């Protein structure tokens, strides 16, 4: 990678009656752009990759002008050599997985920073190479999509909500792969998401996009846990973020218990010791409100709390519930609120699936879901 890893983004784009404007220089290894749908995230990535042309301005990466209205430069996507992982993967359905990964690979002969073998190992997709995209699960498909874009050895990788189509459990499994990639390869990543936990788990710097403009930027943890993030949290889906100590680890049962005051929050097993603090996120819409404890349901957690505040936002009701001193935001419908007759100071139970808890770990945690295999697939 050249010494100058700056990505200068300074352009305007009008698109279907929507106006996008940006002016910033990205320097960090992983930058997250956070925004609700319609905030311009995909427009941003499409302009950087060359799929869309801005109306005016400049896009410069490592001193190389990719787009400049002043100099009449507009490199086509195939000349930009920027990796792009799409939300839906967009694997080629008529080519098997090995072929998909090879598709962009052969272009650069000198200086290989990424050995395809190693990429396949890191993303654990050896066993999939001979299959076709339709035979893969959502999580496998996204891993292959990531492998495919890295195999062409881009120095800049764009990721458009690569985990959005996956459930929380799968997300937590794929995030460590992204950490591996971030640490192993000389690659700068621009990560677009509407999920605060993903931004916190991966990014060195975060930008908040709203209505086609940057409204805030800074250190992800400070930015996204501060009260100023609440407006975006409301748009992108409120996420409750806490750091809780581990009280018990049970590898056999596949669970880890976290202490939340006198109560317990059960999450899927992670390789941590008792007493370690773990940052977690729970989306407001992933919490179910119940008036009874111990319902005969599969969700592992039922935390007792008390309603502190009830707010109407658009067509939803946001409850602010105090659980052992922690504020928990819960999003429900108006009709649910009416039916349960919820009001301030009502005692309620917050029902949470263990898999709905997002881990916000900043290191590449080994979830010990699978050990490295000896299996050597055909290239």
């Amino acid at each position, binding site marked *: 990678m050249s010494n100058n890893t700056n990505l200068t983004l300074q352009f305007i784009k009008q698109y279907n009656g929507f106006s996008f404007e940006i002016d910033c220089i990205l320097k960090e290894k992983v930058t997250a752009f956070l925004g609700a749908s319609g905030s311009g995230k995909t427009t941003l990535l499409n302009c950087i*990759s060359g799929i869309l042309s801005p109306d005016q301005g400049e896009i410069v990466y490592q001193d190389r002008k990719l787009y400049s209205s002043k100099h009449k430069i507009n490199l086509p996507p195939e000349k930009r050599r920027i*990796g*792009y992982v799409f939300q839906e993967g*967009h694997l080629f359905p008529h080519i098997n997985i090995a072929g998909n990964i090879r598709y962009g690979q052969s272009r650069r002969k000198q200086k290989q920073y990424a050995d395809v073998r190693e990429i396949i190992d890191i993303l654990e997709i050896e066993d999939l190479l001979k299959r076709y995209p339709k035979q893969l699960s959502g999580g496998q498909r996204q891993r292959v999509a990531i492998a495919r874009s890295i195999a062409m050895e881009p120095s800049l990788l764009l990721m458009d909500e690569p985990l959005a189509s996956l459930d929380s459990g799968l997300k937590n499994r794929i995030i460590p792969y992204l950490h591996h990639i971030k640490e192993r390869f000389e690659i700068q990543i621009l990560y677009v998401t509407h999920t605060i936990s993903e931004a916190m788990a991966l990014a060195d710097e975060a930008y908040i996009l709203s209505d086609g403009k940057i409204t805030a930027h800074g250190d992800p943890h400070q930015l996204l846990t501060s009260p100023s993030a609440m407006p975006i949290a409301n748009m992108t889906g409120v996420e409750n973020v806490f750091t809780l100590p581990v009280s018990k680890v049970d590898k056999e049962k596949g669970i880890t218990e976290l202490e939340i005051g006198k109560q317990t929050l059960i999450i899927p097993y992670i390789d941590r010791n008792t007493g370690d603090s773990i940052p977690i996120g729970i989306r407001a819409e992933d919490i179910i409100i119940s008036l009874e404890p111990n319902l005969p349901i599969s969700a592992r957690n039922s935390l007792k709390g008390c309603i502190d505040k009830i707010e109407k936002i658009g067509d939803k009701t946001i409850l602010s519930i105090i659980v052992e001193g922690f504020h928990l935001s819960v999003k429900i419908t108006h009709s649910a609120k009416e039916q349960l007759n919820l009001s301030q100071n009502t005692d309620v139970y917050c029902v949470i699936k263990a898999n709905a808890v997002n881990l916000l770990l900043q290191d590449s945690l080994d979830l010990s879901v699978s050990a490295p295999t000896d299996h050597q697939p055909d290239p």
Partner: protein
Amino acid sequence: MRITSVEVAALTLSVKVALLSLIIMLPPGLFIGWLLVRRDFIGKTLLNTIVMSPLVLPPVVTGYLLLILLSKQGLIGSILYRTLKLDIVFSPIAVVIAVSIISFPLLVRGIMTGIASVPMELENAARTLGSNPFKVFLTITLPLAYKGILGGVILGFTKSLGEFGATYMVAGNIPGKTQTIALSIFDAVQLGNDIAVFRLVLISTIIAFIAIWVTERYIYHHNDVY
């Protein structure tokens, strides 16, 4: 009841002409189909109208227009005659031209259906992976559009086999030279040769039936293997 040598010649000519027109028209068909589906440009509607017009014009009208263009006094015919001493009217070449023009809209329709069924996102993904538009067309668009393309090929081919009006106008009805199977049916009817009519109608019907059946069975209703 045996098929006559003139009828064999008509059948052979029909098949040869249909194949030849397919080979000639497939590359421009793919290009124009791609252009009409994937690109925006000035005159797109005009191009579409011109390409599709043989579908709605009476074939005799198309044939008459071709006759005017290709005759020794015509816009194209005069140039060909002066430079190459070529008189294509009433020759097998005229059959190929007539058949190609008439079947082209069906071919392009199929190609357009096929190309439109390929998600643009896949083409964009291929661009970001380093392929130029031509390579994207060859490696992504074409293989994924094959069903529609094959449908257009089969329908165009069958249309070519049975073309009558335009061929009659521009190539005449010369047995052994420009007489296709459709024209030989016309002759047989004129001569009141009922057995020959029956024979030729049966052959034509079987060919048409097989073509449609194959298209429906294996192209449009076949489960996706991918």
